Protein backbone atom coordinates (compact mmCIF):
# COMPACT_ATOMS: atom_id res chain seq x y z
CA UNK A 1 0.00 0.00 0.00
CA UNK A 2 2.95 2.35 0.57
CA UNK A 3 3.25 5.18 -1.92
CA UNK A 4 0.81 3.46 -4.25
CA UNK A 5 -0.76 6.42 -6.04
CA UNK A 6 -3.80 4.65 -7.41
CA UNK A 7 -7.18 6.07 -6.59
CA UNK A 8 -9.94 3.65 -5.72
CA UNK A 9 -13.43 3.62 -7.20
CA UNK A 10 -16.16 1.41 -5.76
CA UNK A 11 -18.67 0.21 -8.30
CA UNK A 12 -21.23 -0.83 -5.74
CA UNK A 13 -21.98 -1.79 -2.17
CA UNK A 14 -20.61 -5.31 -2.69
CA UNK A 15 -17.15 -3.87 -3.20
CA UNK A 16 -17.20 -2.11 0.19
CA UNK A 17 -15.51 -3.74 3.15
CA UNK A 18 -17.89 -4.45 6.08
CA UNK A 19 -16.58 -1.46 7.97
CA UNK A 20 -14.77 1.74 7.03
CA UNK A 21 -11.12 0.85 6.64
CA UNK A 22 -8.36 2.17 4.45
CA UNK A 23 -7.50 0.30 1.30
CA UNK A 24 -5.05 2.65 -0.42
CA UNK A 25 -2.47 5.34 0.37
CA UNK A 26 -3.09 9.08 0.53
CA UNK A 27 -0.27 9.29 -2.00
CA UNK A 28 -3.18 9.18 -4.44
CA UNK A 29 -3.91 12.79 -3.40
CA UNK A 30 -1.61 15.19 -5.28
CA UNK A 31 -1.32 18.13 -2.89
CA UNK A 32 1.04 20.04 -5.19
CA UNK A 33 -2.03 21.88 -6.46
CA UNK A 34 -2.33 23.60 -3.08
CA UNK A 35 0.67 25.87 -3.41
CA UNK A 36 1.09 29.32 -4.88
CA UNK A 37 4.81 29.52 -4.26
CA UNK A 38 7.29 26.74 -4.89
CA UNK A 39 10.80 26.06 -3.59
CA UNK A 40 13.66 26.05 -6.05
CA UNK A 41 16.98 24.64 -4.85
CA UNK A 42 20.15 26.34 -6.00
CA UNK A 43 22.49 23.33 -6.13
CA UNK A 44 25.56 25.55 -6.23
CA UNK A 45 24.72 26.72 -2.73
CA UNK A 46 23.31 23.41 -1.47
CA UNK A 47 25.64 21.51 0.90
CA UNK A 48 23.58 18.31 1.15
CA UNK A 49 22.88 18.89 4.84
CA UNK A 50 19.36 17.51 4.30
CA UNK A 51 17.76 19.95 6.74
CA UNK A 52 15.10 20.65 4.11
CA UNK A 53 14.36 16.91 3.89
CA UNK A 54 14.31 16.63 7.67
CA UNK A 55 11.74 19.35 8.36
CA UNK A 56 9.29 18.88 5.51
CA UNK A 57 5.87 18.16 7.09
CA UNK A 58 4.76 16.44 3.92
CA UNK A 59 7.77 14.22 3.18
CA UNK A 60 7.87 16.08 -0.11
CA UNK A 61 11.66 16.23 -0.38
CA UNK A 62 13.10 13.18 -2.07
CA UNK A 63 16.70 12.08 -1.81
CA UNK A 64 18.09 11.33 -5.26
CA UNK A 65 21.80 10.63 -5.69
CA UNK A 66 22.36 11.94 -2.16
CA UNK A 67 20.86 15.32 -3.08
CA UNK A 68 17.57 16.82 -1.98
CA UNK A 69 14.97 17.07 -4.75
CA UNK A 70 11.64 18.80 -4.15
CA UNK A 71 8.72 16.55 -5.06
CA UNK A 72 6.47 19.03 -6.83
CA UNK A 73 3.59 16.54 -7.01
CA UNK A 74 3.12 16.96 -3.26
CA UNK A 75 4.93 20.13 -2.16
CA UNK A 76 2.40 22.52 -0.60
CA UNK A 77 4.74 25.53 -0.72
CA UNK A 78 4.92 26.07 3.06
CA UNK A 79 8.52 27.37 2.65
CA UNK A 80 9.84 25.77 5.85
CA UNK A 81 12.68 24.34 3.74
CA UNK A 82 13.62 27.78 2.43
CA UNK A 83 13.42 29.30 5.91
CA UNK A 84 15.55 26.59 7.56
CA UNK A 85 18.17 26.16 4.83
CA UNK A 86 21.50 27.19 6.43
CA UNK A 87 23.05 28.38 3.17
CA UNK A 88 19.97 30.19 1.76
CA UNK A 89 20.07 27.76 -1.14
CA UNK A 90 16.28 27.65 -1.57
CA UNK A 91 14.27 30.42 -3.21
CA UNK A 92 10.48 30.57 -3.12
CA UNK A 93 9.18 31.36 -6.58
CA UNK A 94 5.63 32.39 -7.47
CA UNK A 95 3.59 29.80 -9.31
CA UNK A 96 1.65 30.63 -12.41
CA UNK A 97 1.72 33.79 -14.45
Amino acid at each position, binding site marked *: *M*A*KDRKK*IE*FKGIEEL*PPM*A*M*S*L*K*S*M*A*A*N*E*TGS*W*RNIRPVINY*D*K*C*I*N*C*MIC*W*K*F*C*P*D*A*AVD*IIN*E*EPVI*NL*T*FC*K*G*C*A*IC*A*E*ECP*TDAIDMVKEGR
Partner: protein
Amino acid sequence: MTKKKMTLTLPVEENMSPGHLACQGCGAGIAMRVTLKALGKNAVLTFPACCWTIIDGPFPYSSVEVPLLHTAFETTAAAAAGIKAAMNVLGNKDTIVAGWAGDGGTFDIGLQALSGAAERNDDVFYFCYDNEAYMNTGIQRSGATPYGAWTTTTPVNHFKKESKKSIDDIVSAHKVPYHATASVAYPEDLLKKILKAKEIRGFKFIHILAPCPPGWKSKPEHTVKLARLAVQTGIFPLYEVEAGVYKQTIKTPKRKPVIEYLKLQGRFRHLTSDDVKTIQEMVDERYAELEERFNKGKQ
Protein backbone atom coordinates in the same frame (compact mmCIF):
# COMPACT_ATOMS: atom_id res chain seq x y z
CA MET B 1 30.59 25.81 -1.55
CA THR B 2 32.17 22.41 -0.97
CA LYS B 3 29.63 19.64 -1.26
CA LYS B 4 29.53 17.82 2.05
CA LYS B 5 28.69 14.17 2.04
CA MET B 6 25.05 13.70 2.92
CA THR B 7 24.49 12.64 6.52
CA LEU B 8 21.02 11.96 7.72
CA THR B 9 20.25 12.54 11.38
CA LEU B 10 16.95 10.68 11.13
CA PRO B 11 16.20 7.24 9.69
CA VAL B 12 15.66 7.54 5.96
CA GLU B 13 12.60 5.28 5.77
CA GLU B 14 9.29 7.15 5.47
CA ASN B 15 6.41 5.52 7.30
CA MET B 16 3.99 8.21 6.24
CA SER B 17 3.01 9.06 2.70
CA PRO B 18 2.83 12.57 1.26
CA GLY B 19 -0.55 13.72 0.02
CA HIS B 20 -2.04 13.99 3.50
CA LEU B 21 -4.35 16.84 4.39
CA ALA B 22 -2.26 18.84 6.88
CA CYS B 23 -2.16 22.60 6.35
CA GLN B 24 0.95 24.16 4.81
CA GLY B 25 3.66 24.24 7.47
CA CYS B 26 1.79 22.01 9.94
CA GLY B 27 3.82 21.23 13.06
CA ALA B 28 1.77 18.08 13.65
CA GLY B 29 2.88 16.84 10.24
CA ILE B 30 6.53 17.10 11.23
CA ALA B 31 5.78 15.52 14.61
CA MET B 32 4.08 12.48 13.06
CA ARG B 33 6.74 12.03 10.39
CA VAL B 34 9.57 11.95 12.94
CA THR B 35 7.64 9.78 15.39
CA LEU B 36 6.84 7.17 12.74
CA LYS B 37 10.50 7.05 11.74
CA ALA B 38 11.37 6.36 15.37
CA LEU B 39 8.63 3.78 15.96
CA GLY B 40 9.22 1.81 12.79
CA LYS B 41 6.78 -0.47 11.05
CA ASN B 42 6.08 -2.74 14.03
CA ALA B 43 3.72 -0.29 15.66
CA VAL B 44 0.00 0.38 15.95
CA LEU B 45 -1.49 3.83 16.46
CA THR B 46 -4.79 5.01 17.83
CA PHE B 47 -6.10 8.55 17.28
CA PRO B 48 -9.00 10.28 18.97
CA ALA B 49 -10.86 13.11 17.27
CA CYS B 50 -8.07 15.59 16.45
CA CYS B 51 -6.38 17.20 13.48
CA TRP B 52 -4.79 13.91 12.51
CA THR B 53 -8.22 12.30 12.21
CA ILE B 54 -8.60 14.49 9.13
CA ILE B 55 -4.95 14.77 8.12
CA ASP B 56 -4.64 11.01 7.69
CA GLY B 57 -7.21 11.15 4.94
CA PRO B 58 -10.78 9.95 4.40
CA PHE B 59 -11.98 6.41 3.76
CA PRO B 60 -10.67 4.53 1.83
CA TYR B 61 -7.22 6.15 2.09
CA SER B 62 -4.62 6.53 4.83
CA SER B 63 -1.33 8.39 5.04
CA VAL B 64 0.29 6.58 7.99
CA GLU B 65 1.71 3.24 6.99
CA VAL B 66 1.05 1.44 10.26
CA PRO B 67 -2.27 0.01 11.47
CA LEU B 68 -4.46 2.77 12.87
CA LEU B 69 -7.60 2.76 15.00
CA HIS B 70 -9.67 5.91 14.93
CA THR B 71 -11.52 6.18 18.20
CA ALA B 72 -13.79 8.55 20.13
CA PHE B 73 -12.46 11.80 21.57
CA GLU B 74 -12.13 10.83 25.24
CA THR B 75 -10.69 7.41 24.72
CA THR B 76 -7.12 7.45 23.41
CA ALA B 77 -5.35 5.97 26.40
CA ALA B 78 -8.13 3.44 27.11
CA ALA B 79 -8.23 2.25 23.49
CA ALA B 80 -4.44 1.93 23.49
CA ALA B 81 -4.62 -0.10 26.70
CA GLY B 82 -7.19 -2.39 25.10
CA ILE B 83 -5.09 -2.89 21.98
CA LYS B 84 -2.03 -3.71 24.05
CA ALA B 85 -3.92 -6.18 26.24
CA ALA B 86 -5.22 -7.95 23.15
CA MET B 87 -1.78 -8.16 21.61
CA ASN B 88 -0.39 -9.58 24.83
CA VAL B 89 -3.02 -12.29 24.99
CA LEU B 90 -2.54 -13.09 21.32
CA GLY B 91 1.14 -13.67 22.02
CA ASN B 92 2.50 -10.51 20.40
CA LYS B 93 4.74 -8.75 22.90
CA ASP B 94 6.79 -6.80 20.35
CA THR B 95 4.37 -4.57 18.51
CA ILE B 96 4.46 -1.07 19.96
CA VAL B 97 1.07 0.39 20.80
CA ALA B 98 0.86 4.17 20.78
CA GLY B 99 -1.92 6.64 21.42
CA TRP B 100 -1.51 9.83 19.37
CA ALA B 101 -3.71 12.68 20.52
CA GLY B 102 -3.94 16.44 20.32
CA ASP B 103 -3.87 18.73 23.33
CA GLY B 104 -7.66 18.83 23.66
CA GLY B 105 -7.88 15.05 23.67
CA THR B 106 -5.12 14.88 26.29
CA PHE B 107 -5.38 17.86 28.65
CA ASP B 108 -9.17 18.09 28.70
CA ILE B 109 -11.59 15.46 27.48
CA GLY B 110 -8.98 12.71 27.36
CA LEU B 111 -7.51 13.40 30.78
CA GLN B 112 -9.45 10.73 32.62
CA ALA B 113 -8.44 7.94 30.30
CA LEU B 114 -4.85 9.23 30.33
CA SER B 115 -4.81 9.22 34.11
CA GLY B 116 -6.28 5.73 34.25
CA ALA B 117 -3.72 4.29 31.85
CA ALA B 118 -0.86 6.09 33.60
CA GLU B 119 -1.97 4.85 37.01
CA ARG B 120 -2.27 1.29 35.72
CA ASN B 121 1.15 1.73 34.09
CA ASP B 122 -0.22 0.25 30.86
CA ASP B 123 2.65 -0.66 28.55
CA VAL B 124 1.85 1.85 25.83
CA PHE B 125 3.21 5.08 24.37
CA TYR B 126 1.09 8.20 24.61
CA PHE B 127 2.07 11.03 22.29
CA CYS B 128 0.41 14.39 22.74
CA TYR B 129 1.05 16.74 19.82
CA ASP B 130 0.26 20.12 21.29
CA ASN B 131 -0.85 22.97 19.06
CA GLU B 132 -2.36 24.70 22.10
CA ALA B 133 -6.06 24.82 21.17
CA TYR B 134 -8.88 22.83 19.58
CA MET B 135 -7.53 23.48 16.12
CA ASN B 136 -9.47 20.81 14.25
CA THR B 137 -12.76 22.44 15.16
CA GLY B 138 -11.54 25.94 14.34
CA ILE B 139 -9.20 27.27 17.02
CA GLN B 140 -11.15 27.14 20.30
CA ARG B 141 -9.28 27.39 23.58
CA SER B 142 -8.23 24.27 25.43
CA GLY B 143 -6.55 23.63 28.76
CA ALA B 144 -3.29 23.77 26.78
CA THR B 145 -3.82 27.28 25.46
CA PRO B 146 -1.17 29.53 27.01
CA TYR B 147 -1.78 32.70 28.98
CA GLY B 148 -2.39 35.65 26.69
CA ALA B 149 -3.45 33.77 23.58
CA TRP B 150 -6.30 34.73 21.32
CA THR B 151 -8.58 31.89 20.27
CA THR B 152 -12.13 32.02 18.95
CA THR B 153 -13.44 31.37 22.47
CA THR B 154 -10.91 33.70 24.11
CA PRO B 155 -11.30 36.71 21.84
CA VAL B 156 -8.99 39.67 22.11
CA ASN B 157 -11.09 41.47 24.73
CA HIS B 158 -11.18 38.31 26.85
CA PHE B 159 -7.89 36.70 25.96
CA LYS B 160 -6.99 33.61 27.95
CA LYS B 161 -6.05 34.57 31.48
CA GLU B 162 -5.58 31.07 32.78
CA SER B 163 -2.18 29.47 32.52
CA LYS B 164 -1.49 26.48 30.34
CA LYS B 165 -2.40 23.33 32.25
CA SER B 166 0.76 21.58 33.36
CA ILE B 167 0.13 18.20 31.79
CA ASP B 168 3.72 17.11 32.31
CA ASP B 169 3.43 17.59 36.09
CA ILE B 170 0.11 15.76 36.06
CA VAL B 171 1.65 12.79 34.27
CA SER B 172 4.68 12.99 36.56
CA ALA B 173 2.42 12.70 39.59
CA HIS B 174 1.38 9.26 38.32
CA LYS B 175 5.00 8.16 38.68
CA VAL B 176 5.17 6.72 35.18
CA PRO B 177 8.50 5.15 34.18
CA TYR B 178 9.17 7.69 31.38
CA HIS B 179 7.84 10.99 30.21
CA ALA B 180 9.40 13.76 28.15
CA THR B 181 8.82 16.98 26.29
CA ALA B 182 9.83 17.48 22.68
CA SER B 183 9.65 20.05 19.92
CA VAL B 184 9.40 19.68 16.15
CA ALA B 185 12.44 21.96 15.85
CA TYR B 186 14.57 19.30 17.55
CA PRO B 187 13.68 16.10 15.71
CA GLU B 188 16.91 14.32 16.69
CA ASP B 189 16.04 14.93 20.36
CA LEU B 190 12.54 13.51 19.81
CA LEU B 191 13.97 10.52 17.96
CA LYS B 192 16.45 9.81 20.75
CA LYS B 193 13.71 9.98 23.37
CA ILE B 194 11.44 7.59 21.50
CA LEU B 195 14.26 5.12 20.90
CA LYS B 196 15.14 5.20 24.61
CA ALA B 197 11.51 4.86 25.66
CA LYS B 198 11.04 1.87 23.34
CA GLU B 199 13.25 -0.13 25.72
CA ILE B 200 11.14 0.78 28.75
CA ARG B 201 8.13 -1.25 29.86
CA GLY B 202 5.19 0.67 31.24
CA PHE B 203 3.47 3.96 30.47
CA LYS B 204 5.51 6.39 28.33
CA PHE B 205 4.29 9.93 27.68
CA ILE B 206 5.83 12.31 25.17
CA HIS B 207 4.53 15.87 24.87
CA ILE B 208 5.46 17.43 21.52
CA LEU B 209 5.06 21.14 20.81
CA ALA B 210 3.64 21.43 17.30
CA PRO B 211 3.04 25.00 16.05
CA CYS B 212 -0.06 25.60 13.96
CA PRO B 213 0.06 28.47 11.38
CA PRO B 214 -3.70 29.04 11.09
CA GLY B 215 -4.26 28.72 14.85
CA TRP B 216 -1.24 30.73 15.99
CA LYS B 217 -1.69 33.23 13.16
CA SER B 218 1.92 32.69 12.16
CA LYS B 219 3.58 32.24 8.79
CA PRO B 220 3.75 28.64 7.58
CA GLU B 221 7.51 28.95 7.03
CA HIS B 222 8.02 29.91 10.69
CA THR B 223 6.72 26.67 12.19
CA VAL B 224 10.15 25.21 12.93
CA LYS B 225 11.51 28.62 13.97
CA LEU B 226 8.67 29.01 16.50
CA ALA B 227 9.16 25.51 17.80
CA ARG B 228 12.83 26.42 18.32
CA LEU B 229 12.14 29.78 19.95
CA ALA B 230 9.70 28.16 22.36
CA VAL B 231 12.60 26.09 23.63
CA GLN B 232 15.20 28.85 23.48
CA THR B 233 13.03 31.27 25.49
CA GLY B 234 12.36 28.64 28.15
CA ILE B 235 8.65 28.65 27.37
CA PHE B 236 8.80 24.96 26.42
CA PRO B 237 11.94 23.44 27.95
CA LEU B 238 12.99 20.08 26.58
CA TYR B 239 13.63 17.41 29.13
CA GLU B 240 13.00 13.80 29.99
CA VAL B 241 12.00 12.21 33.27
CA GLU B 242 13.04 8.63 33.86
CA ALA B 243 11.73 7.07 37.07
CA GLY B 244 11.21 10.54 38.49
CA VAL B 245 14.68 11.90 37.68
CA TYR B 246 14.59 15.09 35.59
CA LYS B 247 17.18 15.72 32.88
CA GLN B 248 17.23 18.67 30.51
CA THR B 249 18.05 17.39 27.04
CA ILE B 250 18.43 20.69 25.18
CA LYS B 251 20.31 23.18 27.31
CA THR B 252 19.30 26.83 27.22
CA PRO B 253 21.85 28.67 29.38
CA LYS B 254 21.03 32.13 28.04
CA ARG B 255 17.33 32.20 27.44
CA LYS B 256 16.02 34.52 24.75
CA PRO B 257 13.36 37.02 25.87
CA VAL B 258 9.81 35.75 25.32
CA ILE B 259 8.98 38.67 23.03
CA GLU B 260 11.13 37.04 20.31
CA TYR B 261 8.66 34.17 20.27
CA LEU B 262 5.44 36.11 20.85
CA LYS B 263 6.03 38.75 18.15
CA LEU B 264 5.93 36.18 15.35
CA GLN B 265 2.39 35.07 16.24
CA GLY B 266 -0.81 36.98 15.51
CA ARG B 267 -2.53 35.25 18.41
CA PHE B 268 -0.40 37.41 20.77
CA ARG B 269 -0.58 40.61 18.78
CA HIS B 270 -2.99 42.33 21.20
CA LEU B 271 -0.67 41.95 24.20
CA THR B 272 0.57 45.11 25.91
CA SER B 273 4.11 45.38 27.19
CA ASP B 274 2.71 44.72 30.68
CA ASP B 275 1.16 41.50 29.41
CA VAL B 276 4.49 40.49 27.91
CA LYS B 277 6.16 41.25 31.23
CA THR B 278 3.64 39.04 33.01
CA ILE B 279 4.36 36.25 30.58
CA GLN B 280 8.10 36.67 31.02
CA GLU B 281 7.68 36.42 34.79
CA MET B 282 5.51 33.32 34.51
CA VAL B 283 8.04 31.67 32.21
CA ASP B 284 10.94 32.61 34.51
CA GLU B 285 9.13 31.18 37.52
CA ARG B 286 8.30 27.91 35.85
CA TYR B 287 11.79 27.59 34.36
CA ALA B 288 13.33 28.10 37.81
CA GLU B 289 11.05 25.37 39.16
CA LEU B 290 12.24 22.99 36.46
CA GLU B 291 15.88 24.00 36.91
CA GLU B 292 15.66 22.87 40.51
CA ARG B 293 14.47 19.49 39.32
CA PHE B 294 17.22 19.32 36.67
CA ASN B 295 19.82 20.12 39.33
CA LYS B 296 18.39 17.53 41.68
CA GLY B 297 18.60 15.04 38.83
CA LYS B 298 22.30 15.72 38.35
CA GLN B 299 23.09 14.72 41.93
